């Protein structure tokens, strides 16, 4: 394209991205089929098609490097699909690294860069090596008497599949099927699925116009090890005519069949292969048009803007409520009642709108899980460990922005699990575990949160080793260490610098520790917990809010100011009588159900000045915030109530102030600050560690 507009380029890039994602899924399926014994030719062909389409797109949009890589991959996949090369694990490795190479090229293209990418150059070199070693086995020359008319319409790939099947002495059949045009996609898919049990559908050719303008007849060319009667029994229906094509005879659809023909009454009570009869659907011209325009791509920033508008409407709603309140107080009861009714209706619609926008932002976690499946495979191979990945809940949906940020933390947790968790094969045999280690990735929704578990059946965390290291690094006094319970010990793995292994290795040692994972999850408003049984395994659980756009918050008053504390961090709230606290190591604490809870007076930590005429309350409240296994009680004046808030970033001048995650509008045109509980917990608990150190040291 001579002068691609930005929009066209954006569309090209997102389409390319989608194709790469499809390719990635496809390769994983292919990997599974190779492990099960044989590469599914259909999957190889789909991979070829994906790369082929990318090549075409790259050419049109002047993406040279993308085009070059696609061209080379296309050659490789062409050799594979035409049987000139076998799909060895090394070849599959190269294909998997192509997915990553594409991701980098697309990221560069997005930034408008055309620099060479080392990973891509390396991949091209590997493709060179593969090409040199390709045996170059040509398709066997034709021993079969195939109709030239048929060969003319088969693609090279279809011709190869036909020969491959004939070489295995399979029978050849023609299925003439009448489909309703409106439902052909699904009906054909269903038929193909059922046909799979018996063999392979090599191609389908339109046979010409059918009995009605809304229908079409296709000739399906199928190779099968089963005989005609079996096929008729399994695939036959009102709209399906099956016949056998004698081996050394013409198989062209245009020539009248001489083989046995079977048309039998529909068998399995209205199977979907039977189309809706033409007359029933002909009045509705909708489906065909709709199918062309089912989805639109939307920049997520546009959704953010819409969400901001919803936030502003929520403020209007609050003002309406107060206006109604004021009217009632002034004796305008009827008007007030009318206004309240309007307010309620407005409230409902606004909630629907909010829910609608949120729904659009949701994407299934499967997107990130697929990437992880590739990582598991790769690391497993690097480490020589056999790993089985079990995924549940891939359909669980979460905010698009959260998904983007989840990939790195999850990847690190999985690296850890494979490297530190899963034992070597010999050790596993010794303790009576199956040689293949299992990593389970589970996701599910729980209320307004999404839970993601990464679970392994490895050796579990060695508590003693963790404590020993924490003491050695000076994170903990030996005395304190002796008092820690199992849960507290496990929580130590989230401290900076803690890793139970001494060496920095290629797999999990890339300078990223569980502390970074925890910080990243915290940034998403999430928390992470760990459970581990020695010898049995480790389970890390991430709890995330479903969306970042709207947060349920507890509104509180401190020294005449209103603040919002995100509910995702609040575990409970309780009242605190004056004098209900005691001092422990110079710090104010209370005893809560038998455990000691450190307190922090928000007024002090946020350095608030109490306005004149606002004396400190006799009775305070404590909001217990918990992050992972750390808990802190925030002492404040009043609990105002729960409210859904839209968090807006602080202006640049305030962005360096610690302790606040953002601002939100309170509804009476005042702005409230949103407490960053993670930062306060970090700061307060770190201070107390410093102060306490001399006491023990």
């Amino acid at each position, binding site marked *: 394209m001579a002068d691609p507009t930005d929009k*066209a380029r954006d569309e090209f890039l997102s389409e390319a991205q989608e194709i790469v994602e499809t390719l990635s899924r496809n390769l994983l399926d292919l990997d599974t089929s190779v492990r099960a014994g044989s590469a599914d030719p259909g999957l190889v062909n789909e991979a070829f*098609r994906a790369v*082929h*389409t990318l090549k*075409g797109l790259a050419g*049109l949009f002047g993406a040279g490097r993308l085009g070059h890589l696609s061209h080379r991959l296309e050659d490789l996949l062409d050799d594979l699909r035409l049987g000139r090369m076998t799909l060895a694990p090394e070849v599959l490795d190269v294909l998997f690294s192509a997915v990553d190479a594409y991701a980098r090229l697309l990221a560069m293209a997005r930034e408008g860069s055309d620099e060479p990418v080392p990973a891509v150059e390396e991949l091209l070199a590997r493709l060179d090596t593969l090409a040199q070693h390709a045996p170059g086995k040509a398709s066997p020359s034709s021993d079969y008497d195939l109709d030239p008319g048929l060969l003319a*319409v088969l693609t*090279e790939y279809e011709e190869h599949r036909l020969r491959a099947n004939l070489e295995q002495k399979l029978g050849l059949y023609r299925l003439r099927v009448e489909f309703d045009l409106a439902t052909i996609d699904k009906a054909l898919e269903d038929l193909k699925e059922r046909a799979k049990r018996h063999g392979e559908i090599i191609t389908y050719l339109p046979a010409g116009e059918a009995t009605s303008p809304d229908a079409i007849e*296709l000739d399906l060319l199928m190779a099968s090890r089963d005989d005609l009667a079996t096929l008729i029994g399994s695939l036959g229906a009102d709209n399906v005519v099956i016949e056998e094509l004698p081996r050394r005879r013409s198989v062209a659809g245009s020539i009248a069949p001489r083989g046995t023909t079977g048309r039998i009454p529909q068998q399995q009570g209205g199977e979907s292969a039977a189309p809706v009869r033409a007359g029933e659907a002909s009045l509705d011209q909708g489906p065909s048009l709709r199918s062309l325009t089912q989805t639109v791509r939307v920049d997520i920033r546009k959704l953010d803007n819409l969400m901001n508008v919803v936030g502003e409407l929520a403020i209007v709603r609050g003002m309406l409520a107060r206006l109604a309140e004021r009217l009632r107080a002034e004796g305008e009861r009827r008007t007030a009642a009318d206004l309240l009714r309007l307010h309620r209706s407005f409230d409902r619609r606004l909630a629907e709108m909010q829910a609608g926008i949120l729904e659009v932002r949701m994407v299934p976690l499967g997107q990130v899980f697929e990437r992880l499946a590739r990582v598991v495979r790769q690391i497993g191979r690097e480490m020589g460990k056999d790993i089985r990945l079990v995924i549940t809940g891939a359909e669980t949906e979460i905010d698009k922005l959260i998904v983007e940020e989840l990939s790195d933390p999850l990847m690190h947790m999985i690296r850890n699990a494979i490297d530190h968790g899963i034992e070597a094969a010999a050790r596993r045999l010794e303790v009576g575990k199956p040689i293949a280690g299992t990593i389970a990735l589970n996701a599910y929704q729980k209320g307004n949160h999404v839970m993601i578990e990464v679970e392994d059946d490895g050796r579990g965390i060695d508590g003693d080793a963790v404590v020993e290291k924490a003491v050695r690094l000076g994170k903990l006094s030996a005395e304190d260490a002796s008092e820690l319970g199992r849960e507290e010990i496990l929580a130590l793995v989230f401290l900076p610098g803690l890793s139970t292994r001494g060496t920095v290795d290629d797999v999990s040692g890339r300078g990223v520790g569980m502390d970074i994972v925890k910080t990243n999850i915290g940034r998403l408003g999430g928390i992470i917990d760990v459970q581990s049984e020695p010898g049995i395994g480790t389970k890390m659980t991430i709890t995330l809010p479903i969306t970042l756009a709207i947060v349920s918050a507890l509104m509180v008053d401190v020294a005449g100011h209103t603040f919002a504390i995100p509910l995702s961090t609040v575990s409970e709230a309780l009242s605190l009588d004056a004098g209900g606290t005691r001092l422990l190591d110079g710090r104010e604490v209370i005893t809560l159900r038998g455990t000691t809870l450190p307190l922090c007076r928000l007024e002090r930590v946020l350095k608030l000045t109490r306005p004149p005429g606002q004396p400190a309350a006799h009775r305070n409240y404590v909001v217990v915030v918990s992050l992972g296994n750390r808990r802190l009680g925030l002492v404040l004046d009043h609990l105002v109530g729960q409210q859904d808030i839209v968090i807006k970033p602080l202006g640049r001048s305030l962005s360096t102030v610690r302790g606040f995650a953002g601002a939100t509008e309170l509804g009476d045109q005042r702005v409230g600050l949103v407490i960053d509980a993670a930062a306060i917990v970090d700061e307060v608990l770190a201070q107390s560690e410093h102060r306490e150190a001399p006491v023990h040291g």
Partner: protein
Amino acid sequence: MPRILIVEDSASTRAFVRTTLEAESGVPAVEVSEAASGFDALRLLPRGPYDLVISDINMPDINGLELVQFMRKSEQHKNTPILLISTQSSERDRLRGLRLGADGYLAKPFGAAALMNDVARLLSGRGSERDG
């Protein structure tokens, strides 16, 4: 106003062809319909007649060659000019397409000028590659 049907599974390629057709064919322009797959094309064809069908070869359901074959067997579409566009720039594919009844073959990547050249030729009813 000439009616053109684009059959192509890649959305950005469809957009490119449409934009080129609309921008380059002057006023009055052409009326462009898009099909995202071979099956979509089969559904749209009865709303014809179209003056030109521009089709990709490599598509997931029925491919461009099969679409050509279908149209040539059909009373309504047997004379509609068909331009195949494909990345498979091998002589074998070109010949296969023309033998089945396509009127032109354009290898991707192609520029706006090459596309418009073929489109103008086929819309004017002059020379199909088949005949010459």
